[in-house]
């Protein structure tokens, strides 16, 4: 072992501070400039822990995206040091088919394993909740549609069609986003939102 004197200690401390400060600067840029630009927080795969825990626990190994049979899971831009390599999905592009493969393969505990059983999934998974925009939804505006009702894996439990297939979303909705993916209206009349944002959105839109 090389014995260190004071001079070498300070030298190596400063030498290590250069890359650390660069990475911290990148994170600061991401926290202040890149993250506020996002309209909503990302939708994590099923079984994800809370967002701040997720960022620290996830080891960015990309195994969840590799097992995903539907290619639902995407990864953030690698230029963003805070979000880079963390999994998320965009419901409008591809919804989650709730196969529970990603959280069973996760080695880091960022995605908590959930058994592949429809009753357990209904209880445990809470990605968000679908909200219908009655102003543009076809079924509320004279055209009987009901595509979202039949796209849902829990038709009758999470969402059910009222008169003229007007969708009614219940609190059991897991937020997989298959309804949003299937919506034939552009822009989508049904949309998955985080459970914390429900009160804000429902006051405005519905």
């Amino acid at each position, binding site marked *: *072992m*090389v014995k*260190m004197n004071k001079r*070498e*200690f300070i*030298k*190596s*401390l400063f*030498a*290590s*501070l250069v*890359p*650390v400060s660069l*990475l*911290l600067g990148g*994170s600061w840029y991401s*926290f202040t400039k890149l993250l506020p630009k996002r309209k909503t927080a990302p939708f994590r795969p099923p079984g994800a822990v809370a967002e*701040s*825990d997720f*960022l*620290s*626990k*996830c*080891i*960015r*190994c*990309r*195994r969840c*995206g*590799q*097992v995903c*049979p539907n*290619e639902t899971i995407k*990864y953030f831009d*690698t*230029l963003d*040091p*805070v979000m*880079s*390599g963390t999994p998320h999905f965009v419901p409008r592009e591809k919804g989650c088919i709730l196969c529970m493969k990603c959280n069973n*393969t*996760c*080695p*880091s*505990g960022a995605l908590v394993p959930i058994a592949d059983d429809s009753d357990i999934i209904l209880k445990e998974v809470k990605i968000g909740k679908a909200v219908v925009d009655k102003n543009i939804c076809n079924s509320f505006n004279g055209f009987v549609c009901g595509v979202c009702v039949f796209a849902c894996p829990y038709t009758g439990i999470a969402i059910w069609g009222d008169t003229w297939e007007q969708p009614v979303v219940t609190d059991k909705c897991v937020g997989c986003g298959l309804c949003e993916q299937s919506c034939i209206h552009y822009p989508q009349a049904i949309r998955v939102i985080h459970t914390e944002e429900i009160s804000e959105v429902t006051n405005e839109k519905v």
Partner: protein
Amino acid sequence: MKKKAGQIGAEIEIENSTILTMYDYAFGDDNKPMLFLGDFEGGLWSFRFYALSVSDPLAFVVSTATALEFNLTLFLSILIPLGLILLFGRFFCSWICPYSFFAELGNSLRTFLNKFGLEYFHFDLPVKTPLFYLIVSLILGGIISVPITTLIYPPRIFTEAIYHLILSGVITSGLIFIIFLWLGEIIFSPHLFCRRLCPGGALFSLLGRWRIWRIERIESKCDLCGVCNPACPYGLNPSEGQFPPECDNCSLCIDACKNNNRNALKNVIRFKV
């Protein structure tokens, strides 16, 4: 399944062929390109092969330090590499790490160009910089709860680069960083990143301090010719019998010693076990 000419509505049954299936997996539009790997998933950073899940020990250290929470699944997955590191020391750097290959390539390129009289800079940092980088980035990353330590760790960068190259044909920023690092190493200092910054190397040096499999020098037989010293990529001095934790058992000094020794059987520098 193509329709035969003249036969309306009839389909030809293609026999189930393994080669065709593999071709479909590899190049077919309907399948995921990664599926041809079969039951292997992940990369160097963390992978699963059948029931065996293996992760880098650095992943466990960084994840635990930033989240301040012990995760049993992650701990179980690092047990195999941890045991290997306790036995063999920093062997990962010289034998498995993909960046090591490029660094050695750059080093030989540098020595090759040196023959034509090209002089380069010699830039160096203190020996303990990687350890400081590991500790400082773990503390500061823990404060903002973002694992910034591993953003520059080559096995992780290569894993994500290969994933994105195959799946979406995108060159990641990490790969660009590696390319610039490699060019910088050729010009300024060989193996600078491995020796003086790599957080994984620092962790493996710490763990492998009491390694069993190590290189030793037989003092009575050594005639101090010193051919082994320039052969060491880490700038250690094997001729003085120094094999500190930074030594990654790459055995380049053994090769150099063999070439110089008249009787190759009597190696002065050799593996201990």
